[in-house]
Every structure is written in structure tokens, then in C-alpha cells.
């Protein structure tokens, strides 16, 4: 379905991106392991938020199921990590994520608005409960140990590669028929249907694509924690964080979510470092400030979620119109 037009406006950003990523790959030799752990946080959230926005940006479905896929990835590593070679484990994780995303996609995409939001949240809890129940009653062991010889730098490189693949995918998608279909769906689903677009299939395809990246992120991150249980793997806060970061950055542009991830991750870090006892209050105040005093941060959201002037799709050709709401 994807027929890509190879032009200079395609080659140039790809080469630029390749150079940036190649440079980023040398980060471990430049900074200490604290900054590496910060880089891992940023990279993993960048993947999650970008993958989230890949589906949710154009369709405007706010999904809180991010951590479902993340957790499934982590669990795949916990179960298979010591049995199979790591690359095979990653493939299994991607498959598990695909199957689950297909199942969820086909059953839920007819829900609208807040019903979808809460549904995806409910799904998180359900999966967590089912995994718990399975572990308790079948394996009789809750909490799994992951003793893999994977260093922090390995994790960073894997995440970096995944992010590069994701951005490239998003970039190609923005120029593909599938991406165009998604853009039309975002504008007007009814029109899309009458233009001959199989709306359900497009949405599910995107949902699956985004889920695979989330699953792989979970799989790559899991060895970092040595031990996972359902509470650790399926922590709903992660889903919320991803949504907030992507919304703040701008979910309808390919690089938008990353622009939300970097300042917010750093901000969380500063708050954590300086206000260990008042983190909640500071975080809440910051949020309020963003919402009220920086309406610019929210005007972007207006446009994306129902406002009349919507900016163009991730990476689409620039529109001539940039009106201020």
C-alpha cells in the first residue's frame, strides 16, 4: 500500500537524521552513567510518546493503553529472557504486542471520545489482573527475576536504534498512502469511508504499528529493573505521562512529541532532585502554570482536538495557512 515518492525533500531529512543519531550513539563515551540513565529515560519516553502520537495524533483517540503494551514487552523478556537469545525475545515481544493490539483494535475502535479513554484504562487494569491471576494460579510465582547481562549502554543503543526506526517509519508513513488515509480520517471519518478507505483497517494497522514500538520499548527496558511484577510492569502512571508529554509537544507532528518529552523529563528530574518532599505540589503547580499561564502550550491542543484550525499532519507538506486561534 505504501508507494513512497523519493525526492530530495525525502533524502535530506533522512541523512540529517542519520547524522544526528550517529552522533547520539557516542553519548556513552562522553558522559557518566547518571546522564546515561537520564538519556535512557528521555529516549524511552520519546519512543513511547512518538508511537502514541502516531496513532492518537491523527485519529484523536486518547489511548491510556500504552503501559499495557509496554508491560507485555517487559513480561515477554521476563518469561523468555533466559531461554532464548535476546533478539529472538524481542521478536516474540513484537508478536505478542501485535496480537494483543489486533484484538484490542478490532474490538474497541468503535468507541468514541471519553469512552475509549476509560476503556483503554480499564484494559490496563484488566491485563494486570489477568497476568497476576495467571502467575498466581498457573506459575505459582508472582514477580520474576531478570538476570541478563545487558548493560545500561546496551539498553541505550537499543532504544536509540528503535527510536531511529520509529522516526523513519513515521517519516515514510507521513508520505505514504496509509498516512494520507489516516490524515483524511482525522479530518472527517465519514468522508474517508465514502472515499473508499477501510477506516477500521487503517486505524487498526496504525494501532498495531504503534503498539509494536511500545512493546519493544518495554522489552528493552525490562532487564534494567532486575525484577518485575504486574504492579511494576503495568504502572498506569506511565500511560498518563506519555499522554501528557505527547499532548504538550504536539501529537500531530512527527517530532512534536519529542519536543514535549525532553523538557518534561528534565523538569521532572529537576523537581525530583530539588523537592524530594514536595514533588507532588511542585508538579501540580507546574501543570497549572502550563495550562493557565502558557496558553500557547494548550492552544496547540485546541487545534488538534476539535478546534477549527488544525495544523498539518506529522511531516505533511507545510500548509500555507498558519492562523492563530
Amino acid at each position: 500500500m505504501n508507494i513512497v515518492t523519493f525526492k530530495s525533500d525525502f533524502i535530506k531529512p533522512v541523512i540529517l537524521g542519520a547524522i544526528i543519531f550517529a552522533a547520539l550513539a557516542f553519548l556513552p563515551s562522553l558522559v557518566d552513567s547518571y546522564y546515561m540513565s537520564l538519556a535512557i529515560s528521555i529516549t524511552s519516553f520519546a519512543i513511547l510518546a512518538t508511537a502514541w502520537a502516531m496513532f492518537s495524533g491523527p485519529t484523536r483517540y486518547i489511548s491510556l493503553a500504552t503501559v499495557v503494551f509496554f508491560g507485555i514487552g517487559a513480561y515477554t523478556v521476563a518469561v523468555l529472557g533466559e531461554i532464548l537469545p535476546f533478539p529472538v525475545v524481542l521478536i516474540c515481544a513484537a508478536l505478542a504486542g501485535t496480537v494483543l493490539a489486533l484484538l484490542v483494535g478490532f474490538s474497541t475502535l468503535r468507541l468514541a471520545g471519553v469512552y475509549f479513554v476509560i476503556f483503554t484504562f480499564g484494559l490496563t487494569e484488566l491485563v494486570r489482573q489477568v497476568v497476576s491471576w495467571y502467575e498466581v494460579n498457573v506459575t505459582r510465582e508472582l514477580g520474576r527475576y531478570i538476570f541478563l547481562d545487558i548493560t545500561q549502554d546496551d539498553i541505550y543503543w537499543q532504544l536509540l536504534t528503535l527510536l531511529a526506526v520509529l522516526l523513519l517509519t513515521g517519516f515514510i508513513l507521513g508520505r505514504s498512502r496509509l498516512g494520507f488515509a489516516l490524515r483524511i480520517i482525522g479530518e472527517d471519518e465519514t468522508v474517508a469511508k465514502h472515499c473508499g478507505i477501510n477506516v477500521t483497517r487503517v486505524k487498526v494497522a496504525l494501532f498495531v504499528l504503534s503498539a509494536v514500538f511500545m512493546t519493544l520499548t518495554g522489552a528493552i527496558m525490562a532487564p534494567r529493573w532486575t525484577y518485575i511484577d504486574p504492579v511494576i510492569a503495568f504502572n498506569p502512571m506511565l500511560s498518563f505521562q506519555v499522554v501528557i508529554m505527547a499532548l504538550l509537544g504536539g501529537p500531530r507532528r512527527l517530532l512534536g512529541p519529542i519536543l514535549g518529552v525532553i523538557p518534561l523529563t528534565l523538569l521532572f528530574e529537576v523537581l525530583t532532585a530539588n523537592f524530594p518532599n514536595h514533588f507532588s505540589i511542585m508538579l501540580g503547580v507546574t501543570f497549572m502554570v502550563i495550562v493557565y499561564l502558557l496558553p500557547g502550550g494548550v492552544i496547540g491542543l485546541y487545534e488538534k482536538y476539535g478546534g477549527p484550525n488544525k495544523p498539518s499532519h506529522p511531516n505533511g507538506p507545510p500548509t500555507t495557512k498558519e492562523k492563530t486561534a
Partner: protein
Amino acid sequence: MQISSRLRIATLAAATTALIGTALLGAQAQAQDTYRIGYAISKTGPGAPGANTSTIPNYEMWVKEVNDAGGLKVGDKMIPIEVVEYDDRSSSEEAVRAIERLINQDKVDFILSPWGTGLNLAVAPILDRAGYAHLAGTAVSDKAPQLSKRWKNSYWLLGTGSQYANELATFLDQLKSDGKINNKVAMIAVADGFGIELSNAGRKALEKHDFELVYDKTYPLGSQDLATIVNEIKSLGADTFVAFSYPPGTLGLTEQARVLNFNPKIFYAGVGTAFPLYKDRFGADAEGVVSLGGASETDPKIADYIKRHIAFAGREPDRWASIVNWASLQSLQQAIERAGSTDRDAINAELAKGGFDTILGSYKPGDQNFWQVGQWQDGKFVGIAPTSMDGAQALIFPKPDWKGAQ
């Protein structure tokens, strides 16, 4: 719009980067006029209640007591403690990063453990790699012996789930052979690492001692509404009720048992029973309830510790992990004094030697010389097993009737 929004984000990013730069780099280790101790612990999130009960007050109280006394005695100098603390928000990832920061940015001299099995396991490899000792005060894992081998300087202070279950089973077996209880046991566990580990071990141990498990189920983490479970168990004729539960469930189960007037001869409920909260909530009805942990309040050291804890934190310590944590802090203090320097390797070597004088008597981190089974007796949570330990109290048997709510 596009431009202004980009600009805004760029400004925000620049500002935060500047902020983080000053915030993180500003705090460099100074010359050794203080001993820097760092910890990252769950001040918020699901782990917060546990951390606030068994760990945080002990850390704070220890630091205050040491500093009030002029500091740690290193050689012939007194060096005060300086604390760097973070909130890991009950997340493994945050805990990992906070520990990395303590090591690399704050360059602290020693790191105290986070709260809970999961987080302790998450940070263990990092502490090990950086050569820090790890006094894991609130982790229960059947892999504890392997873990201490895997990470040389790690000490798993609360031991394995099996040991609590085995001790309980042995204790119950004695009662059974004395003809005091029948062979029926109803067991419920919280579906969390801790509950499952204990119930697995409990199942094995109880069956080995020819007990019949008439009820053996789990309940989901976070659930407090356990009325139907208690009602069902009540009809099964078990003399012994065992719940490997977490505090909210422990309180919920006790309350339901009281409402339904389910009064087995042995009423054992897991984590939370040894918390002061339990006594506050149930008053006289706490009498006779059995759980893990315990404290010999006749021991002046323990009694004094409890008194100081009340004075410092405004509430009693719990009678299980708090006591072990305190013993480990005392050990650390003595290890530093014995090493006579702040050199990490020297201190680690001393920690490994043990023989510290603590509220648990002569103690080496990782020793399991604390109470495995305890019981509320006359407003005190006393130790009853292992029966071979000094100060073991006789079990109040059978459990007295519920007096009912006020």
C-alpha cells in the same frame, strides 16, 4: 502559531536545561567534613504507606540522633552526616535513576536502601557495580541467599518468605500435636510477590505437617472488601486462619472477622498487624492476633528504641521491619567507627564481619535473629517464635473473643 509554539518549547527546554545544570552540578562533593548519605525512597505512590511506616522515620531518626551526638566517630574525628534524599515515586525506573544520581552526581559515601522487594532488586546491580554496600531492609525474597552471592555486598535483611511460613507451620504443628487445634487451616494471600511467596511456602510447610488446607485462595492487591471470603471461611470449620496480606487487606479481614464474629483459635494476619495502626484501630480486639515480626519489649534496648521512635515520629514503630532496619543502621554506624575511615571498601569489609551491638543483640546484617511469629498481648506485639529465642512469650490460646466495636 507553529513558530510561536516551537519558540515556546525551545525556551522552556533551554530554561529547564539551565535549571537542571545548576541544580545538579551545583551540589558537588566537598572535602570530607561531612559523611554524605543518600537514599531514594517511595515518598509517594503505592509504596509510600509502607515506606513511611517501616523505613523513612528510622532513617530520619538515625541521622538526627547521630548528628545530635556530634556525628559519626571516624578515627578521632566526629563527622556529621549530610543527607541527600529523593522520592522514587514507587517506580523502578525512578529508583534506578535516583541511585545513579546519588552515585554519579551527588557522589554520596553511602546509600540506604529503598522500600520494597521490587525496588531493592532494581537498584541492587547498580549499587553492586559501583561498589556500594546494600542493606536491603524491606525485601522478602526466596532468592535472598542467591542474591547475596550474586551481589557481594548486598544483605537481604528480612530473609526469605519460606522462613516465616516454616516457622509458623512448625509452631502450628506443635499446637496440633498438643491437641489444641484441628488440622484444618484456611489460608488467604494477597496476589503480590510477597503474599504469593509466603503462601507457596506456607502451603508446602503446612502440608508437610499434615495440615489440610480447607481454603487456599488469593485476593487482588488493593482489594479491601473481603467480606465474602471471611464468610465462606467461617463455615469451613478451620481452627486456624492464616492471611498473608498487606495492611489494607489485613485491616479489612480483621474487621470482617469481627463483624461476622469469626473467631478461630489462631488468627494470623500478615503485614500490618505489627503496625501501631492495627492497635489504634482495633483496640482491645487486637489481643491474641498473630502475625510476623515481634519485639521483646522487656528488653530495655527495644523498649528504649520504641520510646525514642514515638518521641521522634509521633507514633510507634512497627514491630517487624522497623526493628530490623534500625539494627542495620546501628550496624552501619559501628562499621564506620570500626573502620576508622570513610573508605567505602573498609566499611564494606567491616559490615561483612558482623558482630555489631544492636537492638537485636549481636548482629550481622542478614542475620535472621528476629521474631518470625509474634502476637498482640496486652497492647504489646511480642515475639512467640522461634520459641528457642530469648524472651519468647507463651502464646495466648485460644484467641480471645472479639469484644466487638464500640
